[in-house]
């Protein structure tokens, strides 16, 4: 899985590509931990190019959310593919991490909630 990070003002955009499985979830957690050390609080995870997410992927997302929660950070998901969305929503993770159709919408949601 490829991980690309870019900034949009106060928010970070982490774009994932490929399979979000056992092996890539560890890299995702390390990347997020380093970004949180840099000061990342608002993050949009763009999974438009992710075609599979495993329970390890969901767990790594959950761990990142647990780290950001006491820091008043928030995680927005964007551009979920149908097969990924089926697992994401069916596992109840959409109640923890709100999903949006695209990155811009997810970024605007930060401002709206602020």
């Amino acid at each position, binding site marked *: 899985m490829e991980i690309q990070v870019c900034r949009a003002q106060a928010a970070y955009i982490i774009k994932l590509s490929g399979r979000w499985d056992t092996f890539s979830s560890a890299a995702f957690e390390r990347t997020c931990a380093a970004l949180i050390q840099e000061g990342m609080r608002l993050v949009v995870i763009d999974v438009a190019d992710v075609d599979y997410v495993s329970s390890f992927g969901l767990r790594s997302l*959950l761990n990142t959310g647990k780290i950001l929660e006491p820091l008043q950070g928030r995680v927005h998901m964007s551009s979920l593919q149908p097969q990924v969305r089926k697992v994401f929503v069916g*596992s109840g993770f959409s109640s923890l991490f709100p999903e949006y159709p695209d990155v811009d919408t997810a970024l605007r949601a930060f401002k709206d909630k602020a």
Partner: protein
Amino acid sequence: MSPSEVPWRYRLETRQSIPIMVGLVGVLALLLTLGYLHAREQILASARAQMAQLVGSIARQDDYNRNWLERGMQPLVRLVATFPHLNTQEQKAADANLSAIISDTRGRQIVDVLLLGENGKVTVRRYDSKKLLSVGSPSTTKWTRQRVLALTTPEWHAPEVDARRNLMLRYSVPIVDKDSSGKAQNIGVCSVSLAISWFADRVRSFSPFKNGSVFFLSQDGKWTLPPQDDIPLARLKARILAHASGESRLIWNDKPYMAVYMPMAGGKLHLGLLIPRKDLFGDLDRLTHLLGIIGLAVLLLAAYSLHRTTETVLSPLKPLGQLAARLARGELEADPQTPAPGPATRFPDEAHRLRQATEKLRQALHQRMQDLTLIGQTRERLFGEMTFARNMQESMRPPKLPHTPDMEVAAFVHTAGDVCGDMYDYFSQSPRRLCCVMGNAAAHGVPAALLTSRVIPLLHELLLSGLAPGKALENCNRVLGPAASREQHMVSVFVGILDLDDGLFRWASAGHTPPFRSLGQEVNQLDWTGNMPLGIRDKETYPEREIRLRPGESLLFVGPRLLSVQDAQGRGYGEEALRCFLARNTEAPTGLVRALYAQIRDHAGGPPQDDLTFFAVCWRGDVAGDKPQPPVDPWNVSSEAAGRQEP
């Protein structure tokens, strides 16, 4: 390890010292030999030069003597010419006068007067400086009538050595008288001999070799040295006659001598000089001996210095070599006989630092070997524990259910490692109710096994107590929640209860993939309930849903990893492939799970690299037909609508 046990290849000092010492000895011996030969040649050249000077001196002396004899011969000849005309009394007076003329100032002088008689005989009269010595026949003087008559001009004879080993010069002059007709005729010969006994001493006085013996050798083999009964002298004489000039060594009177010789007097005579070797080469020999002793002393000093130097240089390397040899043999323990290297005693001491580094290397290797041994023991212990965990996990799998005509259950488990995070269970909640549990822990190895070993028995007991699937999951989540949340683990579980009497299947799901139901070529997946896995939120509720199966309908419970098994191109197996498989395979659960694993294996190109668990349940309905089936739409999901909305 004693020094004698050190292999030769480590004893470098000997291998280095021997060739260096041999080289030094060779160079010293070569220098001494060359120097000795050069000095000896110089001395011999000096001796030859001295001999040349002697020859020149002797030649001058010889000329002087000859002139003296020639001048002295003139009055003698005039007196002798009167002898034929003298009477006896006059002859005696003439003899006295002739002896008076003869002089011995340059050596003993002998005069032979050979007169031809009227009868043709030759009479010899011999005089010395004192008197007439004899009157006789010429046989003693080897003069014949013909030889006397043939001598018409004065003649110098070849130098000779007389019986007393004196060099003798002889000069003969014809005696001429006029006959009655006034014609001059040869009436005799006057021959004078000069025996130069002092000549050798005179020559010796010219030479720098005071102890040398000067000798003359005439062409007839007579010389002024003692008779030739001495073999070395005989050899020397033969060599002089053969080579005319040169040098030769000989032992004479048990002493070593060097003879230098060269021709003189037009080759008619050889002059030689016997020099004691100690006079000629004594200084050179002493100098050579002195240089040899000094060279040997220097050599010994150099050898000692070399030995000390090599000892100083190589002594720190000996323990290093021993340590390296022990490392090569795999002996990593500290040698009690070899003290540990202390601080360096001088600077720089690279060998000492190298030894310290090697000692640290040995200690590190020793520590690493101990660590590896400990790791091996730990690995063996973990392997035993893992084997126990695997056996324990296998023992927790549900036993085969007793065969009933209205139901069939078949399961398949593929474990990639020793233990897996997949879990499943099926058991009878009551004689006519079958509980089905399918779950997965988001972990690998031992953590996954520990989670599943906690969830499965807990759910088993909760369901056996009569709880519905949703309540059982809620209670299990409350028990599991704090620990799982702290350890950041989560478990997805699907729980369903099948009523074997009417085919009613009631289920609840904690974030797990719902099973697929199939009948003939109809394949559908039960709905996702949208509830979170266990271990995330403590107060999560799990609403139940239910369907009613048709007789002969099957449920296939699969783990989440089945749909993600990849082929060689990285493509996942996928939900559509599973639907197609179920549509094509309508056989009983036992054959169904085997065929499904075969297809997964074909898709992956070999055994899957991840855990795979799935099991199938087929409900055949009331085969006795004594209980009426309620008319229900099998695909109509009756939801309790108390939980989350379906995605």
